[in-house]
């Protein structure tokens, strides 16, 4: 069992947990993730390591389905059954020069650890974060601190730049002031945003989020097509060259179980209402 040292709701439907995981934290690097299982009947779900402090790792997640909703219902001092990691290949951190790290929605959570690592490696780091509106923005202060510069975007203009991170990235590309780019967010956002760097051939990494089971390379559930080849996102990734990803296949494979997911969440809601368990 692993203890939740600290649980916080940091935006509408978005939660930040610090979990005690002495076997994960000391060796975790930017770009890696954990697989967690809440209890003996739970599903194994992958979540990115967003920060590390001593023996604790931070995860930031959006409550979208059964498992993330159940997780959100846990609080400080509660325990989860399993956390395995760090998994995946770390981000390619080296002295690129000028880097842009771009986060969309809950994908913003992956940026602090990455921005800090890139800065430590000698890069100048521009953070660009985007959300639908101000209430969905997360980790703004932390990223202002971790990056040399931070640009905030909202789809509705409720704060910062009125528009998408892609617009800002296009400008950086046009001004030729960026040498490497990371884009982390929903698949559709990564697909569209990464188009901005394609022509200029700027190295662009995306963190792919297919459905996983073990997260250790044993099942192939997470297979994605990159550059025409089948790769396992959990062990060959999750970060890949954005310009080689078969995005449509990824998005289709994210929707293998829509009915089961709906049923599972409804059942959870019914159960928690009846038992009054929900906080």
């Amino acid at each position, binding site marked *: 069992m692993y203890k939740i040292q600290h649980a916080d709701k940091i935006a509408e439907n978005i939660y930040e947990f610090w979990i005690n995981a002495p076997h994960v934290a000391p060796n975790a690097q930017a770009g890696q993730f954990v697989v967690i299982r809440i209890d003996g009947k739970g599903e194994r779900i992958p979540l990115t390591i967003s920060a590390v402090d001593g023996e604790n790792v931070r995860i930031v997640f959006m409550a979208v389905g059964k498992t993330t909703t159940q997780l959100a219902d846990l609080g400080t001092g509660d325990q989860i059954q399993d956390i395995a990691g760090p998994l995946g290949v770390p981000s390619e951190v080296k002295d690129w020069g000028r880097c842009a790290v771009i986060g969309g929605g809950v994908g913003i959570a992956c940026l602090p650890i990455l921005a800090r690592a890139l800065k430590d490696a000698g890069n100048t780091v521009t953070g660009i974060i985007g959300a639908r509106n101000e209430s969905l923005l997360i980790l703004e202060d932390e990223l202002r601190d971790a990056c040399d510069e931070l640009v905030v975007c909202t789809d509705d203009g409720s704060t910062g730049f009125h528009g998408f991170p892609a617009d800002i990235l296009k400008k950086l590309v046009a001004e030729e002031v960026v040498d490497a780019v990371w884009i982390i967010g929903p698949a559709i956002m990564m697909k569209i945003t990464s188009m901005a760097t394609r022509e200029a051939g700027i190295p662009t990494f995306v963190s792919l989020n297919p459905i996983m089971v073990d997260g250790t390379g044993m*099942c*192939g559930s997470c297979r994605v097509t990159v550059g025409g080849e*089948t790769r396992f996102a959990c062990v060959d990734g999750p970060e890949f060259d954005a310009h080689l990803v078969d995005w449509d*296949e990824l998005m289709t494979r994210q929707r293998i179980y829509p009915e089961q997911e709906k049923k599972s969440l409804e059942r959870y809601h019914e159960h928690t209402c009846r038992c009054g368990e929900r906080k």
Partner: protein
Amino acid sequence: MNLRPADDRVHDFEEVDTGLPEQTAVLEALRCMECPRPMCVQGCPVSIDIPAFISAIAQEQFRDAARILKQDNMLPAICGRVCPQENQCQGSCIMSKKGKPVRIGALERFIADWERENGVESPGVAPSTGKQVAVVGSGPAGITAASELARAGHSVTIFESLHKAGGVLTYGIPAFRLPKDIVEFEIDQVLAMGAVLRLNHIVGRSVPVDELLRYDAVLIGTGAGLPYFMGIEGENLNGVYSANEFLTRVNLMHADQFPEYDTPVIRGSRVAVVGGGNVAMDSARVARRLGAKVYLIYRRREEDLPARADEVQNAIDEGVEMVCCSNPVRILGGPEVRGVECVRMDMCELDASGRPIPRPLEGEESHFTLDVDMVIEAIGQGPNPLLSGLIPDLERGPKGTIVVDDGGRTSIPHVFAAGDIATGAATVIWAMGSAKKAARSINQMLAGEE
């Protein structure tokens, strides 16, 4: 075998073979000729003293039989159930020349089950040597090595990346062939000797390689868990699984009990399983239990199926339809699977193993389509590359196995390997046997250091 009726068992995951009742076991044991030069022992990869344990059963000395058995085999309840005895001990039994061989596997299982019910004698553990040994992986290789090493008095830590120990015994082989409480029981025996189990620990990641190499000795038993795919069109459609994924979802994550358990699995109404080994049979039989009509597509003839003959028969009895001399060329549909196009195969000249080499027949008429909504590929697994790829100087074979000598020694002096990671996908008993040899080498090495 005492099999439950097919139309009964196909609705649940309870064990198919209910085992021998005591009286039957004793009568079966009395059939043993106690040959002076027993062929069965030669047929056994770990050379169990088979005539001795059978003779103890014949005399109803079950405790003695268990002791004899366990001298050479730490996991008899498992091996008695899943070993391909027909090619090993039973295959060599002199009685098979006169009809039926002694049912050695069933007797092995009988004794193991008897012991479990009547209290296990825990083996003595040598005084502590103060040596630290890391065992990576908790499959049959890891468990066996851990037990030998703990018994020798070393302080043993087993690292397992999944949330449950057992390797393929837990996530691969379905409960109707190998009940999971038996696997747990066997692992608990090892832990009772003082070995420590660390779940959720991915060696190479949670435990970095330099930390691993600081142990006095290391045994790598990470298995052959990397699923191969055929590389045909349509393979990434929704509804195409590797056997590993399908079996893991059901055996480890209990997707058969969704939504009580959270992990889903597609419940195909018509399923094609590709392959002909034990993994394919298991996948087909699990798919049957989830209510599907199941086709098993195999490129050679039915008599060439590499799976255990009994398991093939069980699958057929449970309604799995064999589509032999056929090979898939394309999976149809989008985004979901709607069918699989196959080509009929011609059986050509024999290969070195005496099986015909299959070659696709030419022409339109040799293609046909099976109307299915799910495909499970069970065409083989490769050595798990995660850890071995991270250890510099560790010599690997062309297919990614770790190169070892007869004693399980690798190219790094205090690192040993056993099981599928060293042999390539093989069997439980080979994993055990190689782990015992490696453990013996480790014990020798550590004794020499004192």
